[in-house]
């Protein structure tokens, strides 16, 4: 096999991995603070892509403004859902949050399948990032390089914001003891809503980034959701760094297996998940709960 094909698959794996990382990072934030396993995360990813496509299709707004506007739109949808529906299950077992968000996911996905069918809409590479460079050992499309860079910057930016800033300290403290954080004068319910908005906006950005690589398809959220959950389980639920590292590594491993043993590429993540669950049930980066 050629080096070109190998590195091409690895790059695609890295891109998938960065989408896994962004989606599971959003899940980790939301789970840590709200105790909600947000199964609707895939729908927000799909919404991000669709909002970008709709902005272009109906109002003629291009990729660059959409990269900001679509995730904001996703965050608004998410915040409305959190305030009106999801907040009702905070005091119940985690299972109810999972079921509720899974239902919401099905409703959103169903609506878009009803409106747009399942064939997918094309979305062009943004001007300025077409073409690519021949690095000698591989051809690097500019847009894919951009996606990898943006995703990694966003992931580690989010990690930094949570681990090293004052707002992040509020979030971590509120994860441990929300009542006491409120008693210090911090509006925790508002913080929770903002964190939810931020968590789903990450999925929305991933969706916009994905639009030119894959088609904009109502089923794209469902397709990514399953590996993302596996990533979260392997990394350790609620762990920020675990979500990022595991997402990237598993994407690359998946890419590798596509080269060497394509039949296993859909299974490799789950095989790893099984091993991790047997050896370290709380996940590689997780703490015992």
């Amino acid at each position, binding site marked *: 096999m050629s080096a070109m094909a190998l590195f091409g698959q690895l790059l695609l794996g890295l891109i998938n991995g960065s989408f896994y990382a962004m989606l599971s990072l959003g899940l980790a934030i939301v789970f840590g603070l709200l105790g909600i396993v947000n199964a609707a995360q895939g729908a927000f990813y799909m919404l991000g892509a669709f909002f970008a496509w709709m902005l272009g299709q109906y109002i003629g707004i291009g990729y660059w403004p959409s990269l900001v506007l679509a995730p904001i739109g996703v965050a608004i949808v998410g915040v409305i859902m959190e305030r009106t529906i999801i907040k009702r299950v905070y005091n119940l077992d985690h299972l109810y949050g999972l079921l509720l968000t899974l239902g919401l996911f099905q409703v959103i996905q169903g609506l878009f399948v009803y409106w747009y069918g399942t064939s997918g809409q094309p979305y062009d590479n943004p001007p300025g990032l077409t073409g690519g460079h021949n690095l000698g050992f591989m051809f690097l499309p500019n847009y894919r390089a951009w996606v990898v860079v943006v995703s990694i910057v966003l992931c580690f930016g989010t990690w930094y914001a949570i681990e090293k800033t004052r707002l992040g*300290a509020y979030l*971590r*403290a509120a994860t*441990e*003891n929300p009542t*006491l954080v409120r*008693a*210090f*004068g911090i509006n*925790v319910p508002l913080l929770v809503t903002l964190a939810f908005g931020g968590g789903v906006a990450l999925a929305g950005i991933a969706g916009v980034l994905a639009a030119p690589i894959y088609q904009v398809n109502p089923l794209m959220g469902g397709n990514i959701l399953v590996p993302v959950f596996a990533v979260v389980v392997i990394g350790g639920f609620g762990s920020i760094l675990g979500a990022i590292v595991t997402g990237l590594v598993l994407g690359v491993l998946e890419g590798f297996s596509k080269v060497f043993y394509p039949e296993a590429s859909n299974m490799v993540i789950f095989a790893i998940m099984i091993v991790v669950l047997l050896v370290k049930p709380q996940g590689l980066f997780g703490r015992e709960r």
Partner: protein
Amino acid sequence: MSDQVLDIAGLNGWYGESHVLHGIDLKVGQGEVVTLIGRNGVGKTTTLRAIMGILSKREGVVKVFGTETIRMPPERVARLGVGYVPEERGIFASLTVTENLMLPPVLAPGGTTLDEIYRLFPNLLERARSQGSKLSGGEQQMLAIARILRTGARFILLDEPTEGLAPVIVQQIGVVLEAIKSKGLTVLMVEQNFRFAANVADRHYVMESGKIVDMITKSEIAGKMERLEEYLGV
């Protein structure tokens, strides 16, 4: 009265269906150190939680610095200038000592400066980068008090500051309380250690089954020792 920091009248409180506070009346004046004493389970901690708004099922009048707070969530009560040091200290295990110290937002100017805090609590500087979970009980209590002093809160609710601490640490907490008092801050404190409470407090409210049953000032303690011992079951 304008110099009343806390003015509670007819406060009732519930944990779910269970009625735990039965018409509390209690006042704390500017600059006073007042304790709530009584046996275990009579509602002392619950009273503090009701003042803070953490116990949300409550009725009656709770005025803090003259503002009615009975319908306020905890974050708004705090913003009036109230600092809360909970019984379990509430040190965040996933935050470092410094992050814990800097966590509560400044509520009013005039809070204790970091220099002064490190002078009062030298351990906190030594252990600045440790995780909150690594501190001893005494260090946790120091940190819980220090982080409230930093905020400039003028009214401090202290829940059992000496509970489970070695005598030498209790002494240190006493020094800190004197410092708080000399700054003119107001304190309402739950305390089981009556010898400690008697030393630092101006007045004592005695609680029994969700009610205030007596109030004793510092000067009356000697004369009412027998009655106090009966209240406290010693």
